[in-house]
């Protein structure tokens, strides 16, 4: 076997190994979350070795929680991680490259073609996900970057191996025919799809969990404590939110991006985690949330616009409210001058209190966000990866009734 062919195969094997390692960690991190809990994830260029800080982790978490990280989320809880087929593809490429190295098959056209094809598939997928990452998510996760890198190296190594197999030197033995390629193609298909099959068949039954988080109690709303934020839709949705809760903002945005959101007739019930108005707390988790909640109550039918404004500026408001609530007040009144007189009135203070008393009547857990659809509570564990699956189940549950 030519030295060049050996080098090309080593290059392909190296690319496959890099891709395999990063794909494996990405898949393993994803699979950990199938228990509906929160876990740390690998997000470094040395996965499994280097500790990942919370700040670095956020990019990988954003990517993992995004709808692009998995397929068929309505059908399977969390969906099928896209990194799972890539584990199979890279493993196939690694086995093929090592086999070719071991048996000096650098000139084997079938092997060269198989490596080039796998490289092409992974590079194509990498380009797609890189643009998704940059354009849609605006983050670049390090584990994904590792997969992109492995893909490029595999593609280059595979392509050079393929080209090399057509350029035999004089006296060199026959490089085999292309006719073994279908055999490798079958292997590639098995490596890609069998793990997918096993993954989907091993998933636990989530139905009893997603529908088991309780119902919204019925209580007469004498004080109009609910604020409508979306009028159309066939299913009644109640969001329990704190305007300064980051999870509420993220959850709201995630839900809004789903087609299922259009089916919801949504209203909010405010649950500010701020002891200024919420007697149930000994410490304020979100100082300033009472003021912003009162601003939302004053906005009435325009609450949706005010909420969007608060969410857009939430990071600033959270920092500012901790130190100086007056700055937040100025920003809100500057944008919505009509709220100025209402916010500090006795009636608004009473209404805010009635909102919290309504939370008591409903025996709500003291946490945000919460979402109830047609009275059925979406579990906290299903607000990210399992969201689409849980929504589908809750919608179906209503139909069955």
């Amino acid at each position, binding site marked *: 076997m030519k030295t060049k062919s050996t080098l090309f195969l080593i290059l392909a094997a190296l690319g496959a190994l890099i891709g395999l390692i990063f794909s494996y960690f990405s*898949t*393993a991190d994803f*699979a*950990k*979350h*199938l*228990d*509906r*809990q929160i*876990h740390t994830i690998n997000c470094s260029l040395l996965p499994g070795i280097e500790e990942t800080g919370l700040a670095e982790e956020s990019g990988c978490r954003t990517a993992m929680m995004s709808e692009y990280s998995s397929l068929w989320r309505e059908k399977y809880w969390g969906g099928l991680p896209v990194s*799972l087929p890539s*584990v*199979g593809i890279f*493993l*196939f490429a690694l*086995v*093929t490259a*090592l*086999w070719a190295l*071991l*048996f000096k*098959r650098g000139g084997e056209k079938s092997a060269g073609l198989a490596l080039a094809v796998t490289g092409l598939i992974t590079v194509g997928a990498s380009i797609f996900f890189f643009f998704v990452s940059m354009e849609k998510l605006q983050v670049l996760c390090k584990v994904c970057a590792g997969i992109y890198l492995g893909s490029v190296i595999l593609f280059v190594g595979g392509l050079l191996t393929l080209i090399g197999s057509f350029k035999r030197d004089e006296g060199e033995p026959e490089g085999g025919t292309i006719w*073994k390629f279908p*055999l490798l193609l079958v*292997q590639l298909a*098995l*490596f890609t799809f*069998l*793990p997918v099959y*096993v*993954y989907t068949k*091993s*998933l*636990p039954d989530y139905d009893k*969990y997603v529908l088991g988080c309780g119902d919204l109690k019925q209580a007469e709303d*004498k*004080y109009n404590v609910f604020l409508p934020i979306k009028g159309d839709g066939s299913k009644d949705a109640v969001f329990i939110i704190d305007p300064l809760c980051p999870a509420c903002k993220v959850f709201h945005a995630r839900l809004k991006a789903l087609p299922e959101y259009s089916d919801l007739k949504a209203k909010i019930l405010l*649950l500010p985690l701020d002891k200024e108005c919420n*007697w*149930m707390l000994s410490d304020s988790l979100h100082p300033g949330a009472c003021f912003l909640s009162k601003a939302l109550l004053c906005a009435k039918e325009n609450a949706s616009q005010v909420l969007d404004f608060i969410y857009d500026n939430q990071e600033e408001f959270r920092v500012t409210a901790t130190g100086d609530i007056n700055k937040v007040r100025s920003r809100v009144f500057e944008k919505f001058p009509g709220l100025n007189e209402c916010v500090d009135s*006795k*009636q608004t*203070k*009473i209404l805010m*209190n009635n909102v*919290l*008393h309504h*939370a*008591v009547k*409903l*025996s*709500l*857990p*003291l*946490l945000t966000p919460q979402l109830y659809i047609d009275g059925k509570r979406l579990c906290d564990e299903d607000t990210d990866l399992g969201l689409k699956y849980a929504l589908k189940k809750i919608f179906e549950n209503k139909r069955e009734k």
Partner: protein
Amino acid sequence: MKTAWIVNIAAAILFLILSLLTVKDMVTSAGERLEKGVADTGDAVKKNPQIASLSEVEYCNEHLKTVLRRVLENCGLIGAGSRRGCQPDDVKKITMISDDDFNTLFKPLSKRAAIVLFDKGKSDLTEEAAKLIEENWTDQKGASFFFVVARASTDGPTELNRVLSHKRANSALFHLHEKFKDPDLEQKVGLLWLGEEFAQLPEEFCAWNNSRKGQPCTVEDINRSVVISWIDCRI
């Protein structure tokens, strides 16, 4: 040539099986944690969150709650009773405690309560009195019952003082009705009028927040009054 391809197929099968076992293990171990409700560290994960609830402060001892419950049940706030408020004889019978004990029970409310003072023989609210009632009502927080306990001083006939204290209680109630138009007002306000006959306030109550701050206050003055307060107890 053949050997190489046999090895290729064997290696492919071996690694394929390994990958399938790995995938199965990843998913089933997550499924087991889900079933058992434990984290991957082995710790239980499910914590019951705090549930939204009404206030229950330190002074809500069983004695106070028992007295309040009796009052609420018998004066129309709890249950199907159609009566509205309690007069001196009722309060004596219902609470089954002495005048002094009755007042002592309410002493922990010194920071929460306010006393609306009236002129001699009068039951109409001054501007300051109305403001004080509004401020106190607005500051409900986690309380669910608002007590209006009206009195009259010992000047004049007992019967007249009973009527006067009733009028004073109603002045406060009607003001709340008019100002806040709360559809649940009837379920929130406990109305008691004690005339001059029961639980006269001692002078020390002059130190409480009242509608005539900085003005002289005698035992007679402090009993021409309505004590208003939210009660932060789950009854």
